[in-house]
């Protein structure tokens, strides 16, 4: 085993994990507290990427573009809550799924109309565009390191927010008992809208962070939304801590699977068969893990406590 490669892949897995966390944490908050299934969460992630890309060209600075995109995305999340989510809270999950799937189609098509099908590459400032040498033969792209740092900061910020602030107390209370929050005399509608805007912003940040790597492109949200759902299901719906653990777990499994599974398979099957089945099995691995975890813990790793 090549330990240098392993270390690099662990960092890559970490980077994927924190991105997943940024998307999934918003999803789990919205799901856990508002009991609202938002398939269109991935579209907000995509909008984050596109808006940031456009602003980067307009302002000629990635950094300012990110700063300016944050409130824009928060407002979009807020608007989404008012127009689509709010009328659907009282309905069952089926209606949420149908309505937000409709929203995906609408948002994706509008993005196609505004930005065209091509996708937009975001240029990075020079100080972010290079590599950082960690040791003699370990170099990783600066920007990927930045993603890890930003992601972890956001994660700990969110954990702090949820565990040690008044808003967080309400959020936790809301996750386990909605009527209690109402009984505390809190304007539940405002709380919901705030939670929705926070969730959207987190997804938007993820989009802004990934765009300089993979470009802002149509359909990028639909790729990540299913994985994000896997994350929150594995972690336990409503649990930010669960989402964090599951996101890192899935990021690592996916990345390590992609990089080492074919070598592993070559030990007991032909090279051709290994090269062919490894990608499929590694794409399958996160679903396998989810099925396994759910068959032992039907409510995920950290089910929110009730009552």
């Amino acid at each position, binding site marked *: 085993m*090549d330990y*240098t*490669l392993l270390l*690099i*892949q662990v960092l*890559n*897995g970490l*980077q*994927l994990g924190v991105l997943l966390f940024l998307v999934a944490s918003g999803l789990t908050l919205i799901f856990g507290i508002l009991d609202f299934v938002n398939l269109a969460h991935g579209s907000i992630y995509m909008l984050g990427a596109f808006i940031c890309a456009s602003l980067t*060209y307009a302002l000629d600075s990635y950094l300012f573009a990110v700063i300016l995109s944050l409130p824009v995305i928060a407002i979009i999340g807020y608007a989404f809550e008012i127009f689509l989510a709010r009328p659907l809270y009282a309905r069952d999950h089926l209606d949420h799924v149908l309505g937000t799937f409709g929203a995906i189609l609408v948002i994706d098509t509008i993005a*196609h109309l505004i930005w*065209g*099908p*091509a*996708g*937009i*590459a*975001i*240029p*990075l400032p020079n100080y972010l*565009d*290079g*590599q950082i040498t960690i040791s003699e*033969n370990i*170099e990783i*792209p600066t*920007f*990927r390191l930045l993603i890890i740092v930003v992601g972890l900061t956001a994660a700990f910020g969110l954990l702090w927010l949820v565990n040690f602030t008044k808003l967080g107390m309400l959020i936790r209370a809301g996750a386990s008992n909605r009527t209690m929050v109402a009984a505390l005399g809190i304007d539940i509608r405002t709380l919901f809208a705030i939670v929705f805007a926070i969730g959207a912003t987190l997804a938007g940040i993820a989009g802004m962070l*990934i765009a*300089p*790597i*993979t*470009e802002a*492109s*149509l*359909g*990028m949200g*639909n*790729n990540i939304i299913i994985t994000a759902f896997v994350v929150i299901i594995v972690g336990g719906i409503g649990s930010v801590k669960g989402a964090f653990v599951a996101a890192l777990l899935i990021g690592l499994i996916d*990345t*390590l699977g*992609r*990089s080492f599974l074919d070598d592993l398979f070559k030990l007991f099957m032909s090279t051709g068969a290994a*090269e*062919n089945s490894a*990608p499929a099995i590694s*794409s399958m691995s996160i679903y396998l893990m989810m099925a396994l975890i759910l068959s032992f813990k039907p409510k995920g790793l950290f089910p929110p406590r009730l009552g």
Partner: protein
Amino acid sequence: MKKVLAAIIFCNFLISSVFAADIKVGFVTTLTTPAAVIGEDMKNAVNLALEHLNGKAGPHNIEVVFGDDGFAPDTGKQVTDRLLKQDKVDIISGYIWSHVLLASRKSVLDAGKILISSNAGPSQIASKLCHENFFSASWQNDQTPMAMGEVFNKDGIKSLYIMAPNYAAGKDMVAGIERTFKGQVVGKDLTKWGADAQLDFSAELAKAKVSGANGLFVFYPGAASGAFTKQYHQAGLKDLLPLYSVFTIDGISLPKLQAANFSGIVGSKVTQQWDPSLDNQANKRFVKDFKERFGKYPSFYAAQSYDTINMIASAVIAVDGDMSDLVGLRSALKSADYNSVRGKYSYGNNNFPIQNFYLREVVEDSDGNWTTEVIDTVLTNHQDPYAAECKLK
């Protein structure tokens, strides 16, 4: 409700029959999903070709009906069926993706129509699935990477790391490079493709970096190319692991890469059967008008689509608009007697072109736009390696 829908369907039918043109050409490409960026280029080129022909092949009007394959084989097949049965086209063309072409092929050939691929050239169709009514206006998948393999041998590349998407064409590209490349392939990754393709290649690039290869060969067409090249650059591999690609850096990705000022790719090399700088009358007119109209260089997809329409027009003239004359159509197509933008070429027994392949380099033109330029002819009058396996004479 039912009545209204029936009425809509009926009107649809009326409209299409009232304005029916003499010759209807079906053109299947990708108009949605991020891959639509290719489809749009092709559509533009088809419309430009029609304009240059004044919408006519001899005395016969030509109308092109576009179909969107949604980047998925089953949707592609469905839209092919619609073109055949609802729009009743006389001939079917287009197809960017090998798997879409493979899925749709049977419908067209069973209906007794001519099928012309404007891009995809999977090995199966060149060998055991070859058919007298199928023609390629582009190349067989293996050929372009085979040309690249020769370049490696000349440049003295000894070991190679390969990355390609996991679908028919991706596998053909890998097979092609392995055919001519004399060194050693030290690693290979086939990544997920399709509507939710993998776009973050961090794990694969990390493996490639430590693999000890002298070069990295990739095939990432369409929207994936920008993502790939950017990450290649960010991973700091430029000097360590030189990049060689086919169908990845092209007229579609270059403007985007230039907008992001990704100067690392200027000077990188690709192989192709066509280039905007090729010196022939048809190509000059095509490139000039395309640039004027759409504000950028045409891609090879566009060139092949432009050729497709001209090729069809030449066949229509040869049979004087009688599209039921399959024998006449076939022999006209097979003669390749039209002004192709790639220059003169001919057809092999499997109806794939026998043509030149060039080495091209990414350069900045006089207006400061990034494009490519031919620097060498790698293969001359090259026939694909599958022709012998095709039963056609």
